[in-house]
């Protein structure tokens, strides 16, 4: 058994989350113009300021060009062929409690391994559920409210906390930041909102689970997390979608605000449908994620990216305040015809700011995996420090791995270090494992997990195990 055979065979594995939920939906006709935006805004009973914000973004978007610099190839997207709003009919009158939620929806999440009944739910994890364009339910809301934590859908926040929305929405990612962010500002339908009051350590893990179900729809959600002075929150998002032959667009925006001394830990396990072995179907995942750190604050991004046909995302940190810390830990796996262009930007503005970037790219099959990162040390970032480590693991001879690190330093007291390596799962390694009685399939996943260890240890405990399993499933196949 040669190792290339072993690997070829493991490349054709299933996608567990690929089922479709059969439920009555209410979906806008495809197409995008100002009327569609007005309709979305009206659907959500938004105040006037929100509608104007959306229209402003839309007008700017019209003048923008689709970015072409990323190392990914995909056909021109027809933005008029996408439906921009889709929600289960049963959500018409927002359910107040789980008892009012359509049981078919609950079953969907049970199948995905996310029980929503609070008594059954993972202890200590509150979940906001976003199904196509709308938030279905948020669990543990009352319990969180006891400590002053606000965790709700963004639509609710627009109505109930307009002062926070006005102040912070678009404050980290401006509406004209980039093509896909501007589109999101115009048409976003829902998302999660988190506010942690001063000095509060959020008593449980918060999480949002995104699910795309309906055909021909795009999912454009936003997440806004505000951690007030001295507070702490750990947040996790997960994503899945049915296996469909068409490509679907997911264009999210995530904004994090860590005020003085606050800490935000944001973890992503992204498992959107990646398309089939020939590259048919799959989600186009064009996401803008950015956080801003005030003095002594810390933002840590951890991502495990195994899904999507195309991934285009660069979770970034603006290190505005002195002594603030930014971290980025990433595992990105591409196989079949998946393409990923992902990395981070660490913008050092304050003094003694520190950033760490650990990126592990795994390419298999015909997958293409690019790390693209920017470390920017501004003239005022006295004593800034960055360490970057980018490792690529190649499995098979048809895949590709790229590294594009941009380093800009304008301060002599700053120290920036970047290292990158590539390696493969070697025949010798596989043979050593086999000689010790370990079958090749287990050996490959053990080696890949070993390669990713330094990132997995950054995930919250419950999810580290999940991520390891996800990677295993993604690499799974039968060995003859």
């Amino acid at each position, binding site marked *: 058994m040669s190792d290339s055979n072993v690997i070829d065979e493991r490349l054709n594995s299933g996608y567990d989350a690929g089922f479709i939920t059969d439920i009555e939906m209410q979906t806008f006709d495809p197409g995008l113009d100002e009327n569609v935006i007005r309709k979305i805004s009206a659907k959500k009973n938004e105040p006037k300021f929100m509608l104007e914000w959306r229209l402003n973004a839309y007008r700017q978007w019209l003048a923008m060009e689709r970015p072409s610099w990323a190392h990914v190839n995909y056909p021109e997207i027809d933005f008029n062929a996408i439906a921009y709003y889709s929600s289960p009919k049963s959500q018409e009158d927002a359910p107040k409690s789980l008892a009012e939620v359509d049981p078919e929806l609950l079953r969907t999440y049970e199948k995905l391994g996310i029980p929503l009944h609070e008594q059954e739910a993972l202890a200590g994890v509150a979940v906001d559920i976003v199904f196509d364009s709308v938030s279905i339910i948020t669990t543990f809301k009352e319990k969180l409210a006891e400590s002053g934590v606000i965790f709700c859908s963004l639509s609710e926040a627009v109505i109930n906390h307009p002062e926070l929305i006005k102040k912070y929405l678009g404050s980290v990612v401006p509406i004209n930041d980039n093509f896909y962010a501007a589109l999101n500002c115009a048409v976003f339908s829902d998302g999660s909102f988190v506010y942690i009051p001063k000095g509060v350590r959020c008593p449980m893990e918060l999480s949002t689970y995104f699910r795309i179900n309906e055909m021909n729809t795009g999912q454009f959600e936003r997440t806004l997390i505000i951690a007030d002075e001295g507070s702490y929150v750990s947040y996790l998002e997960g994503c899945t979608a049915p296996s469909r032959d068409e490509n679907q667009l997911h264009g999210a925006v995530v904004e994090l605000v860590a005020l003085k001394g606050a800490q935000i830990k944001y973890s992503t396990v992204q498992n959107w449908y990646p398309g089939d072995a020939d590259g048919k179907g799959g989600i186009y995942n064009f996401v803008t994620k950015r956080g801003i750190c005030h003095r002594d604050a810390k933002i840590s991004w951890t991502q495990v990216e195994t899904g999507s046909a195309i991934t285009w995302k660069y979770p970034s940190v603006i290190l505005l305040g002195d002594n603030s810390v930014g971290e980025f830990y990433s595992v990105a796996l591409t196989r079949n015809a998946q393409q990923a262009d992902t990395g981070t930007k660490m913008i050092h503005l304050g003094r003694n700011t520190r950033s760490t970037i650990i990126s592990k790219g795994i390419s298999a099959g015909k997958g293409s995996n690019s790390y693209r990162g920017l470390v920017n040390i501004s003239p005022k970032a006295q004593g800034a420090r960055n360490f970057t480590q980018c490792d690529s693991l190649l499995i098979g*001879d048809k*895949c*590709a791995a790229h590294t594009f*690190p941009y380093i800009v*330093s304008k301060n002599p007291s*700053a*120290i920036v270090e*970047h290292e990158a390596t590539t390696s493969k799962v070697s025949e010798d390694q596989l043979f050593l494992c086999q000689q010790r009685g370990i079958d090749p399939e287990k050996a490959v996943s053990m080696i890949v997990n070993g390669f990713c260890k330094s990132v997995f240890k950054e995930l919250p405990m419950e999810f580290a195990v999940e991520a390891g399993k996800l990677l295993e499933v993604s690499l799974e196949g039968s060995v003859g």
Partner: protein
Amino acid sequence: MNNLTSITTDFTHGHQAHKNPWLKSVRDAARSRLKGLKLPTQKTEDWKYLKLEKLLVNEQLEAQSVRELHAKSADDIDKLLAQSLISGLDGYRLVFVNGVFVSKLSHINSTPYSVLFSEANPAQQALIVAHLDTSHNYYNDYFSSLNSAQLEDGLLIHIPQDCIVDKPFYIVNLTIGERPKANMMRLLIIAERGSKATLIEHEDAPLKHAGMVNTVIECFVNDKAHLIHNRIQLDESVTSLCSHRVKQGRSSIYQQHQISLASKLKRNDITVSLQGEYGRTDIRGTFCARHQQTIDTHTCTEHIAPNCSSNEVFRGLVDNQANAVFNGRIHIHPNAQKTLAELSNKNLLLSDLATINTKPELEIYADDVKCSHGATVGQIDSESLFYLQSRGIPRGEAKRLLSLAFIAEVVDQLGENSVRDFVTQRLSSLFTSLQYEGAN
């Protein structure tokens, strides 16, 4: 700015009466390429850190004509040479002034294997035309096309099969005279199978006159050939653009040492393509930028054949308000299995106002390869500085010593003693003039 575009248009119409009509096909091909090209802007990825339009204002991109040079007095040149040449270097000396060959200063009759394009015999002419502009893809390469479009003359060095050249070729290119027109240097080096040669290129501006050089160097290192290429750019007053391309055959070795002082604008594009198995590339370079200077080094190692290795080390020193750019790309093509490729770029920022942009890139399409790259930006190690100070060495002098030590790894590897001594002395005097008191 507009004058640049107008000049370009002129070239493409080809109004000048050129010598050497047998080069017309090369010029014509370049002109038609130029029609599809524009002066790069910051939106062009490979030029994003340079404000070219600003940097090239008042620069001449039009070639100096041979007649103009000969009108100038050559009397002073003798004196200048005494100061600017590497003394003690026993080599075949070929001297160019403002891009034009000056035979009385060169050992043209005793220099083997070399000929000016203008003096090439028909067989050599055929060889030249068959090689020029064939080592690389030209899409998007504006300045080298400009060079080819105005090509009048150049130097061919052609090392025959299995020939080991006894002495280095010492090629000097001096810029003198205030604001002469652009100096379009063109070098073509063909090392045939199994041959070995050393090249020392020395660019200087002894009177610190401003000027503009647009150089194209093409090296063909054929199977089992070994070419050692030392390039010393000390012309701080000269705006310089250089496109340097190397094509390597099976089991060939190409070693380059590059020492570059920045100027108002200095840009070096080095592309090496390893097209035969078991080829080896070694590049050691250093760049030093100070005052308001800019230096931009782009390297690209194309691993096309399997079993090749490449190793690249660049060290940068950036002081005052200078701006340095380094972009090192390793590209492993799908068939290039068993490649070993390494790249390292380390930089010292010596002042609050200096900037370094570095981007080491890996692009890999084969799995059984070992590639690594690293880049660092930092300052002089405070421990070392303190150690020197504690032994009574003043802070400024300590910094000078440590800066020199930082680039010593590269300088020390210059093979010829006389060249190494010459460069060390020039670098050392350069750093004496640096104002360290202001920096911390």
